[in-house]
């Protein structure tokens, strides 16, 4: 009797227990994600994944802020005011160690982009024009990232092509611990990727693509990679390698066949005021876009330069003095409060859209063409290309007529003037193996001299990487612990 009651009670309990204990009960899935294995199976998935690749290029330590800032701040174009928000002071003082968060962020963020680009490249979606376009864009993005890694963390190719490069990863492998590949291998990958990209991409600026069975239509504006943007990047890569012939061929292809024109003198100011990606094939070949809802907020490039934001970095006087009074580019620098305020990214207060980060412009390619002509003993064409830009920007300028090393100097100076505040200057000085006279402050002027043998010209491999990866531990860049 007693046992009957007890067993009945226990039975009731167990029945209740097991009936609600189904396996589904524990199998709760997140609301904002899908399992990796099934996430890239259709054309639409690749479209979404490429958006993610571009969005990850916008991260603060890549084109969101650090790279465009570094290229001027660690060269002779900008310095940080004494009254500042505390950011990039280490860059300004050439005081970087392997724990520096911004420098490490370049490495980390670049490999995040590479991880996402690899997923697109390695996906098994059946090819068609759209899929090839997306894969081509992924190849170009990967190449761009390896280019930035090589330029920031390795000895310049022109100084020593046999130096150590960075680890090459072409497929996701969570637990791998790769050592550094050689610089030659890295540049070979970059070149191969860009050539692949050039072949696969068939949509150009101003076209649009649509994904069948969806309502997705993408207008292929300057914020997506296109065929000639990949070629322009290839020209820059070859120039960085010192390979003048290949650089010239690539630049010529872009200048001749892309249909992208140099922005006119009259439209120059409006061009920089415009925060929207373009379909009209004016000036921009590729840029990383920010809009009103997707931007880095107070951590953005425009917030860093604009006095309405932090306004931390200002132009050096020697840069300002390189512009003639009639140079339309001088108006992008505004003297105010004793400093030379940079106004190249003026959309901080724009409620509709925010400034994008320019990566490749036709003017840059034209100057590459000028330099490669000059270096391959074709000075007449070099002058034509140089003056194409110089006279465009300064209507009252008669034009350069220099030659020899003076011509090269003029071209390099023109690059400095044209690409100021776009993160290019530092890498020009590096590839040309020139000493850097970094201005740390003005009034009084404090200089930091960075000669060509200075180990601080390249970033250290992040401490987190050397700590986690025994194979790279002994390959730290010289001068860093």
């Amino acid at each position, binding site marked *: 009797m007693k046992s009957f009651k007890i067993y009945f009670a226990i039975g009731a309990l167990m029945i209740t227990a097991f009936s609600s204990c189904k396996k589904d009960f524990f199998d709760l899935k997140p609301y904002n994600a899908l399992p990796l294995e099934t996430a890239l199976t259709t054309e639409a998935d690749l479209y979404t994944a490429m*958006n993610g690749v571009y969005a990850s290029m*916008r991260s603060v330590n890549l084109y969101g802020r650090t790279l465009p800032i570094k290229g001027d701040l660690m060269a002779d174009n900008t310095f940080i005011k004494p009254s500042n928000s505390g950011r990039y002071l280490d860059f300004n003082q050439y005081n970087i160690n392997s724990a520096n968060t911004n420098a490490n962020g370049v490495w980390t963020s670049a490999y995040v982009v590479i991880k996402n680009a690899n997923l697109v490249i390695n996906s098994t979606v059946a090819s068609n024009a759209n899929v090839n376009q997306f894969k081509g864009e992924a190849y170009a993005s990967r190449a761009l990232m390896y280019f930035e890694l090589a330029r920031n963390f390795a000895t310049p190719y022109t100084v020593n092509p046999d130096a150590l490069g960075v680890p090459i990863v072409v497929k996701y492998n969570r637990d791998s611990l790769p050592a550094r590949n050689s610089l030659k291998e890295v540049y070979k990958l970059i070149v191969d990727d860009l050539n692949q990209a050039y072949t696969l991409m068939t949509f150009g600026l101003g076209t649009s693509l649509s994904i069948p069975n969806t309502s997705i239509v993408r207008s292929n504006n300057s914020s997506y990679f296109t065929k000639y943007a990949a070629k322009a990047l290839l020209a820059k890569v070859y120039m960085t390698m010192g390979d003048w012939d290949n650089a010239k061929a690539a630049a010529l292809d872009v200048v001749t066949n892309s249909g992208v024109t140099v922005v006119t003198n009259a439209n120059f100011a409006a061009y920089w005021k415009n925060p929207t990606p373009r379909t009209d094939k004016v000036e921009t070949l590729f840029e990383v876009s920010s809009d009103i809802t997707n931007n880095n907020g107070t951590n953005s490039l425009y917030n860093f330069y604009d006095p309405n934001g932090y306004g931390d970095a200002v132009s050096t006087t020697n840069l300002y003095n390189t512009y003639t009074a009639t140079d339309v580019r001088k108006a992008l620098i505004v003297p105010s*409060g004793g400093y030379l305020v940079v106004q190249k990214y003026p959309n901080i207060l724009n409620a509709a859209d925010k400034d994008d980060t320019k990566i490749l412009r036709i003017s840059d390619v034209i100057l590459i063409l000028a330099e490669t002509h000059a270096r391959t003993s074709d000075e007449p064409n070099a002058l034509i290309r140089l003056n194409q830009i110089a006279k465009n920007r300064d209507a009252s300028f008669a034009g350069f007529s220099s030659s020899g090393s003076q011509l090269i100097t003029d071209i390099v100076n023109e690059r400095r003037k044209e690409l100021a505040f776009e993160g290019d200057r530092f890498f020009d000085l590096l590839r040309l193996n020139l000493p850097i006279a970094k201005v740390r402050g003005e009034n009084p002027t404090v200089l930091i001299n960075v000669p060509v043998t200075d180990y601080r010209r390249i970033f250290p491999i992040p401490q987190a990487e050397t700590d986690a990866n025994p194979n790279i531990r002994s390959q730290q860049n010289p001068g860093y612990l």
Partner: protein
Amino acid sequence: MRRLHNFLSSPDNILIRYFYDRLRINIHIRNKTMTMRKFLLLMLCSLLMTAELMAQNRTITGKITDEKGNGVPNASVVVKGTNIGTTTSIDGTFSLAIPSNARSLVVSYVGMSDREVSVTSGSIYNVQLSAASGNMEEIVVTGYGTAQKRKNSTASSTTVGGKELENRPQTSVDQMLGGKVPGLFAPSFTGQPGANQQIRIRGIGSISAGANPLFVVDGVILNTGDLSRLTTTSNTLAGINANDIEAVTVLKDAQATALYGSRGANGVILITTKSGRAGKTKFRADVEVGYTNYANVPDAARPLNADEWLMLYEEGLKNAGFSQATIDASLVSYGKGAGINTDWFDLVTRQGQQQQYNLSASGGEGKTTFYLSGGYFKQEASIKGSDFERYSAAANFKHAASSKLTFGLNLNGNYSKQNTPFNGGLFANPTGNIAFLRPTVNAYNADGTLNIARTGNTNFNQGNYNPLYIIENNKYLLGNTQIRGSVNAEYAILQNLKLSERFGIDYINLNEYQFDNPYHGDARTVGGRGQSSDSRLFNWISTTQLNYNFYPDQEKNFKVDALLGYEAQKSKSQSVDARAEGFPATSPLLPYSTVASSVINGRLGASDYDFASIISTAQINYRNRFVLSGSFRRDGSSRFSENNRFGNFWSVGGAWNIDKEDFLSSVELISGLKLRGSYGTTGNANITNYGWRTTFGYGANYNSTPGGTFNTVGNEDLTWENNKQLDIGIDAGFFKGRLSLIADYYRRVSDGLLFAEPLSLTSGFPSITRNIGEVENKGYEITLNATPIRTKEFSWDISFNLSHNKNSVTKLPGGKDIIDAVNPFILRQGFPINQYYGREYVGVDQSNGDPLWYKDSTHTTIVNDRAQATREVLKGKSTNPKYFGGLSNTFSYRGFSVVADFIYNYGNYISDGWIFYLIDGVDPVQNKYALNLKRWQKPGDVTDVPRYVYQSTNGSSSFSTRFLYKGDFIRLRNITVGYSVPNKVLNSINLSSANFYVRGTNLWTKTYDKNLTVDPEQGVTAQSNLDVYLSKTVTVGLNLGF
């Protein structure tokens, strides 16, 4: 009678036969033998003749007091073995009609010992209960409804009675436990009312996962902690009015916590709310009002005034080699001669209000009892813009539908509103503004309006905003609506076999809204910003259990109590995050984002988790001398990976009441001596809901079109963290309970700790979370309760507790050090969590004022540039105290009483997280601490503060042992002086009780490091973060019972 017996033993009447057989076993009464039949007949006659007996009731009265002679309100007085009883009124008196054959009364109150009194003669019964916790008769509550006398418990737990929690000026009960519970470390870190509270029971048992204990209210496991998404800090427990709490029990060892399985590793805090007791309806009204102010801001941290700052600034420029002309021009630009001297500390702080009002009613008749209450609480902190307000109500009902079935309802609802300023380095943080803003910056314009200009050195050009403008024009609102409740039913299948079911819900609705004005502050460049986050968290839990107790042997020397149960819990949460910018420039400003022009965000997200478990426990008690107990729980959860979804958790414990042994039972000195021990396993499931899945996530959008990235590396083996704990304890009483001691030694090994094991960054992920770490905590806890003096009129009670814990990280991934990226800590095997790691400061070179550091731990070389010194493990210095606890003294003389509670802390080290900007000339445009006035000025000066140099680069203000302060302190947490109005007066005004008192909280603090720039309570990580100053309060209060 014979007929009755035949009827009862007739085999046809199965049900009655069943009970007949039952009663046959249960009639053993110690030392009294009686024939089975006679007793049976006696019992049944009693039952059958209840009606007649009722007419033969008699009324008894009396007063239940504690050892001080104070009446114990709400104590239960029940005729033993029946439901006939009542509760005492607020002065401890009672009146009860008892049947004429009632043999004894049982008087009980949670937190005090049961007393059994014979009532066969007399009509007035005054019973004194012993309140000292640790007394063997005290009822100890452990999980899942088990409650037993301390002398029979094998577990380690501490109970804090409701009396110590009511009418306190703290917003949540978890802020009231520090110093009262040995082993429980609960340092504050902010004075924001409604703030979250970190609690570490027996040390820090986890490094990356949550280390707070589990909270259970009336059997419902709650979602606790800071669940806000925009607000600086918040606490779901702030919704519970502590006046509705009957008692809080903290479960510490494995025997107590293993019943909570995968969630018991960090300890379990059980909260029981008040319920009604039968009797005449009693009302109670409480009022406490007063003011708050900042408790402890050290002089070293006083912000400089204008003259001091200008002088120091000038000195810094001179020492940096600037010309006098440059210096003079700079000084003028910074306001020299302009007569500006803004005292930001004075402008931003205030004396705040503290008020609370509570009203409750409890009563019931026989079968139904109820408790109803309502309360209002408001507290303003000493920083303007920081406050908390709460409206709460509670209703508890219990009904005995029949002798076998009882059911009940506990309901608790509340609404609280909180205004919470920012903390840390955010420019809108008012506490930060006090420290950073120069005294030469104008707070007001000449016309009396608030200054918001941003150019010029006498205006806001250094980043920080005008705090007065922010406080007036911005909003930082948190509204929190909570409903918690449970319905429970208990059915006695047999008298010793009970089936019960409890179904509970925990519903939290958070409404957060932040408005940044368009003119001055973070949203100036976007035309104003309104951000809101609305979260709903809904958690239901169902517990079904069978409790069975029986005597396996004839003599009933052994008693077995067993529990078998099943529990399922589902928790769903969703939030809408919205953001809009571009507000119209109206006057006055319209802060709600309905008027904004650009919608930036308006998204719905959700996250859920489940748990399901089988629970079981059993205890064997041999004549209250030996007790052996054990438990087993099997848990499954959606948080654990498929590979490791289910876990088994168990414990065993034993207790031996040595004082019952012959060789001790005659020793008068010892009133109780119990040796106990336990060992078991528990888990910590405070991990993310979906972290084990490898997923491709969305939301990485581009050109306002959807984008996705592979952003969660996952881990197919991820699961709970494991704990194994050994506890050995002694409970002893001496001098008839006038002195009691509880001592525990414990060793708690936590393994399978979640660690972000670094991956090569080239994989695209920085780390993968694995269960790989191991930490050990061992220590001891001592509680002493004594009543040194007890005379008719005067008594003095002391309660003292001391805890010692040693924490040590025993296993790290690959055995490698992990250096914290944010705080100056290192994780190294053999050292505690939060072990300090940094350079060692030597002092200042007397000859030239340079700061000096040791180059390394050999101390052979001294350098004057921090970059040349290496970081060392600063042995013996961590954020964990070596000893902590509390001391309570209670004095009472006639109707007056004085209660003084101290808390103390010894052996930990604190650091000022923001001193980098506030000392030396590294960042010369900020204001500085007054500590800078002690700087070196000429050769021969002996000081710790180096020469003040404009934009110095020697690293003197970066972390080193210079900024490591001793965290030792003693604090007078509470002092209350009160008076109870005597009965004579009460009778004439028709009240049952009245108490007046004056209370002070945090009135006095003694610290032991003269360099402290912050209060020594800075949370578990001990790094100050420019939070709202801790408050002290002075209040007067009145309790009335009627």
